[in-house]
């Protein structure tokens, strides 16, 4: 196969899933620059493995390469991170109060987004990858099992635990104390 031909095949197989590749790498490295490096490295590997690609499930195929490249990168560059699977307490949720000129709904949306992103970022990487592949890439348990090289039962339990952690991290959001300045106003006795 000529260089031109193999590039064309690579372009057709891998490049449509560049967003998915970057999204996974970005969630695993939690950093724009590192994610770009990892994706580039993954694409170089993908070009090399292209001969072994059987022609179906291009996205899971590419994501598996990205995922493995990510883990290699994480082990080399952030050895201290995500060793255990139970250290997912996460940082405190210091979400800024909405700006005064912002419509409340927009502020709520921004707060939701920031809270959820923080909560996902705080998950252990092994949980995070399963959650991102499921909720953001909408992949089946079987595909996730293949990508993460774990049994389906492990996909199930990790996803359940990831969601349980998210739920407790987001529990304060349900009460939304920052977004309800009403009681404060009432205390001051001022008219709205």
């Amino acid at each position, binding site marked *: 196969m000529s260089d031109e031909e193999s*590039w064309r095949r690579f372009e057709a197989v891998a490049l449509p899933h560049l967003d998915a590749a970057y999204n996974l790498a970005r969630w695993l490295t939690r950093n724009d620059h590192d994610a770009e490096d990892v994706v580039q490295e993954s694409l170089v590997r993908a070009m090399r493995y292209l001969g072994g690609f059987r022609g179906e499930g291009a996205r899971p195929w590419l994501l598996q390469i990205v995922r493995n490249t990510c883990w290699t990168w994480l082990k080399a560059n952030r050895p201290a991170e995500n060793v255990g699977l139970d250290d997912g307490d996460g940082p405190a949720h210091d979400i800024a109060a909405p700006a005064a000129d912002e419509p409340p709904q927009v502020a709520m949306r921004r707060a939701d987004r920031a809270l959820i992103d923080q909560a996902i970022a705080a998950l252990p990487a092994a949980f995070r990858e399963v959650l991102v592949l499921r909720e*953001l890439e909408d992949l089946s348990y079987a595909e996730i099992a293949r990508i993460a090289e774990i049994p389906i039962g492990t996909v199930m339990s990790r996803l359940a635990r990831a969601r349980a952690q998210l739920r407790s991290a987001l529990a304060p959001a349900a009460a939304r104390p920052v977004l309800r300045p009403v009681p404060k106003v009432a205390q001051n006795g001022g008219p709205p």
Partner: protein
Amino acid sequence: MSTVDPALLHAFVDGELDLKSQLEMEQRLAGDPALRQRVEEIRLLRQEIREHAGYHAAPETLRTRVAALRSAAGDAPPSAAPSGVPTPTAASKAGRTIAWGRWLQWRPLAVGLGAAAVVALALQLAGPPPSRDEAIAAEVVASHVRSTLGEHLVDVASSDHHTVKPFLSSKLGFSPPVAALPLEGSALLGGRVDYLDGRPVAALVYRRDNTSSTPSSGPTAAPTARRSSARRAATAPRTGPRRG
């Protein structure tokens, strides 16, 4: 209270249980409101994450680097291709080359699309209105001729528009205007449901000087264009019978 494995509950919400477990879970849920509550919570959380979690699309800088991979794969010897991080200038140059290549590839298509749009616009301006009306007029005449050739002139035979109107309304889903005496010396014979311009319409049959006439009426709630064409169509057959 339940001792269900939470993983199974999540798999249930994800639609990932096999049929047997799915049915078992549904059965348990039916008899366990607390479990239903948990399922609902998982659903809400899932929805919340899917709606709000940030999706990181590949940035432009990455696309530029991907383009540089191509020149690395094509020009450089294969051993140099992996792990080579291109310098920014090389990368952006390659990016520009690719961008121009793309544009040249797509330009004929863009021109073609533009031309097609112009032709479509011209057709829109010149073509449809008369031909559409003509087509409807022809349909009305054909329908009228068919009705006079056969026995089936009317679905409801009555000279009373209070009888004809409700009948047609019930068949059509809209209430057509039924005039008792649209022209001097005419008499209502009845009405029928007809099919015109792709939808059911009311056809009213009148007799005047021993000729029958069949104005058709579309839904009054239809868009103006349709209504006006229906009205124009409705006038067409009146001349037809007189000629005959």
